[in-house]
């Protein structure tokens, strides 16, 4: 009783694990991977630009509590008051 059950469990698990190999063969033609790569490249470029932009942060003074905050912030990091107004 237990041996067949074990084989059954193992089989189900193996099929589930191996499934992506069969699926990907059909899918690789669609060019998804190329698209993914392209997207990743763009994300990287955007990130790079952002971190460069972050270098020249100008301080901004919170109108309600007087704390110094980043100009990037929308709200004061100290008191939570809105910085946009």
């Amino acid at each position, binding site marked *: 009783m237990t041996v067949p*059950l074990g084989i059954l469990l193992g089989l189900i*698990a193996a099929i*589930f694990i191996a499934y992506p190999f069969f699926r990907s063969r059909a899918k690789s033609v669609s060019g998804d991977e190329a698209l993914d790569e392209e997207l*990743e490249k763009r994300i990287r470029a955007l990130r790079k630009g952002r971190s460069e932009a972050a270098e020249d942060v100008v301080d901004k003074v919170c109108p309600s509590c007087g704390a110094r905050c980043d100009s990037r912030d929308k709200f004061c*990091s100290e008191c*939570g*008051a809105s910085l946009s107004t």
Partner: protein
Amino acid sequence: MVDTGHIALILCFIAAVYTALASAWGARSGSHAFTASARNGLLVVAVLYTLAMAAMLYAFMSKDFSLRIVTEHASRDLPAVYAFSALYADKAGSVLFWGWLLSLFAAVLALQKYNSYKQITPCAISILAVILAFFLALVTIVVNVFEENPYPPVDGFGLNPLLQNVGMLIHPPLLYLGFAGFMVVFAFVMAALIVRRPGMEWIGGIRRWTLFAWCVLGIGNLVGMWWSYIELGWGGYWAWDPVENAGLMPWLLGTAFLHSVAMLRKRHYLHTWGLALIIVTFIFVLLSPFITHGGIESPLHGFYASNYPPYILGAIVVTLVGSVVLLYARHRDFGKEDKPLSPISREGAFLLTNVIFLVLVFLIITGVILPRIVEGLGGSEIALERDYFDWSCGPVMLFLVFFMGVCSTLRWRKASLKSIGWNLLYTLFPAVIIAIAVLISGIGNWYALAALVCGFPLFTIMREWLLGTRARRRATGGYYAGAFLRLIGSNRPRYGGFIVHIGIILITLGVIGSSFYGLEGMETLDIGEEMTVGKYELSYDALDMREGSSKVSAVASLSISRDGKLIDTVRPEYNYWFSWMEPFAEVAVRTTPAEDLFVSLSWTSFEPGDESATFRVLVNPLIVWMWVGGGFLLLGGLVAFWPDRKRQSGSEAGVT
């Protein structure tokens, strides 16, 4: 059912090994098929593991004495609720349980992050699968948890009565949840390091996991303290036992890591430091089973050692060497860091906090292993008393609490001396005034210190809240209460942290009150006699004998009066357990905000006609605030943890 569990566990081990290899290959080669297959492998591990756990629990519930583990920890009369307690009363059982939680977490991570962190996640899955395979090897190859008895006995040995308590039902799972959570964080961070994505990215993805692990571990430690207070009958909650320290140290390190995460999110500063902290945290998480399984002798727990310590030690060494080498190999990738403009800034304060946490852990671990080192060097066997820990860690902890007030006062980058001056005037100054008042009034010198140490950070938080609420209300109008809630909602990691700080302040109060101002009295009384402890008079009214199937209970009734007025009755018990052939006291605690009255029936003869009984009575001031503080800890953790719909998409993708 038992066989199914055993087979599932073995298959689970195979699947974990496969997942580790496939995921590593997938991450390296960039093969989508391999990473997808590995992800499925991890899900299979979680499902099969759950199946094995279900089989194990079923065996405990149905009292299947053909299993060794059930025979040793359960008995026919054990309530079904304590099936869990019985499972982790066993050394291998506790590893099984811990591994199960880790498998569930790993599956959640695989599903949650699979699409958002394309390169990091496969690598993290691989690391987690290695850890899981290690755990599974411990419970299948090193020790077989499903080992069967050649001749099933009629009844088992039963579960230690001390473990039959709600506290013990939830204390170990909480610790293991926290440990497993930190393991996930570790895997994710190491993965980010391996695939050379050490920037800000992983922070957004892992902050909430860290918070969860930290919060659960903290609550777990507190529940353990509560259990020790209620159940062990000695009236204290912390003995600096190696096993207790094993749970405390990862939490302290996790706290330091959480603070450095806050720093990394706000400023590109000290990457290596943050990474090193999570590595150290992971190592101390592994150290915990090393200690509890008898790697380091502990006076109170872990009397029956298991054969795991060499394996765990091996894992610790491998982790240490591997991650240090990795960190060194990658340390140039971090790029330019923001320099703090001045040491008098929040970065500076956070860094100091971090260092102090490390010092604290260093002091504790010194106390744990120093006696072993001295012994190993051929010196005489020494033990360190609680005094060592009290007098070395106590001052450091008090300083940390006090320093919480400084941290939130300082601004990022550079704090202006003028604003510090104004802040101190509103926060430190009142705390000093109150401390002096307490000192003069003669309530107690330690209470004066408590007022200073706790008052300063408390006033700081209140001031920040007041200013913030006022600013919010000015901007948006409405009620103050609404403005306050909106304020908390606007920056929940920060204000959740404040709530946690209040919890810590309350716990500090409880510790100071109960450590320095406790009273104790012990007397043997006959029916009708009285004893006095502090302001309380206790009169012994009656003794009831109750016979149950597993124990005989002697229940004493005492009426408590204060200033001649009857205020309450308490009923401490003294239980004689048949299966253990020994008595255990069940204490009665009368809790008020000012102090606990702790009454323990520590001896009675159980002989008919002799109703004299020995009572041990403690007055523990302020102790209830420790448990209230625990509530704040949980609340603050939840506030910071709760998913933020507006910002989540952004921060999860690492754009914040």
